[in-house]
């Protein structure tokens, strides 16, 4: 028999404990720092020539920070959209489909963005 007490013991009824909460907060803090940096970087790049933009993005430090931002952003947006889906979509089939689509979208965006940055960095 599963009592209510038993259901919430350990990792709780969601079976993932506070993992989701921590992932959201960790990526939020990383995003805050990285986004502030990139807002200023893009402000300085506005209206600049293609060669200047590519030279800036291609610098190792900038490229690595961009890759870090991409990773942190796609993880953050995936867990954020997951909560939105879980809040508003109640049909089990539709919910599972959208949760899968959400994961695939986040991975696709992350890989495409990382590929674009690396291509510029390596001068391909």
């Amino acid at each position, binding site marked *: 028999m599963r009592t209510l007490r038993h259901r919430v013991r350990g990792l709780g009824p969601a079976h993932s404990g506070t993992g989701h909460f921590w992932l959201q907060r960790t990526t939020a803090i990383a995003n805050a720092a990285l986004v502030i940096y990139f807002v200023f970087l893009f402000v300085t790049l*506005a*209206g600049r020539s293609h060669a200047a933009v590519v030279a800036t993005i291609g610098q190792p430090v900038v490229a690595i920070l961009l890759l870090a931002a991409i990773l942190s952003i796609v993880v953050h947006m995936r867990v954020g959209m997951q909560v939105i889906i879980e809040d508003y979509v109640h049909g089990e089939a539709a919910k599972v489909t959208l949760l899968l689509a959400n994961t695939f979208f986040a991975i696709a965006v992350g890989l495409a*963005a990382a590929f674009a940055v690396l291509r510029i960095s390596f001068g391909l």
Partner: protein
Amino acid sequence: MIEPKSHVERPLSPHLQIYRLTITMVMSIVHRATGAALYAGTILFVWWLFAAGNPRRFETINAFLGSWFGRLILFGYTWALLHHLLGGVRHLIWDTGRGMEPGEREFLAWATLIGSGTLTVLVWLLALMLRG
């Protein structure tokens, strides 16, 4: 003995439209809305990154982003980003247990809104000044 019913009609909590609109409520909705908009906005960011790999396509996307419509999108993007950022900071403050008292909540909500508007205008003024 009472027969357990399979479906009990329990009272439901009233829905959104029954409450008076408050600034904290609006900022909560806006935080989620800007998050969803930024989610879609990553497509524009990826498009731009890909275009940066090729001089001719870079000119094309720059011409679009430099048009009044492109600038409107970028201005909205900037605001959504900064608003979600400040809204996130507000949540991090709440995570420490602070800022939840009456008055403090409203102050943080207004600070998020006024802060994001001000910062967006400042970022754009800076960009336009540097552009010359």
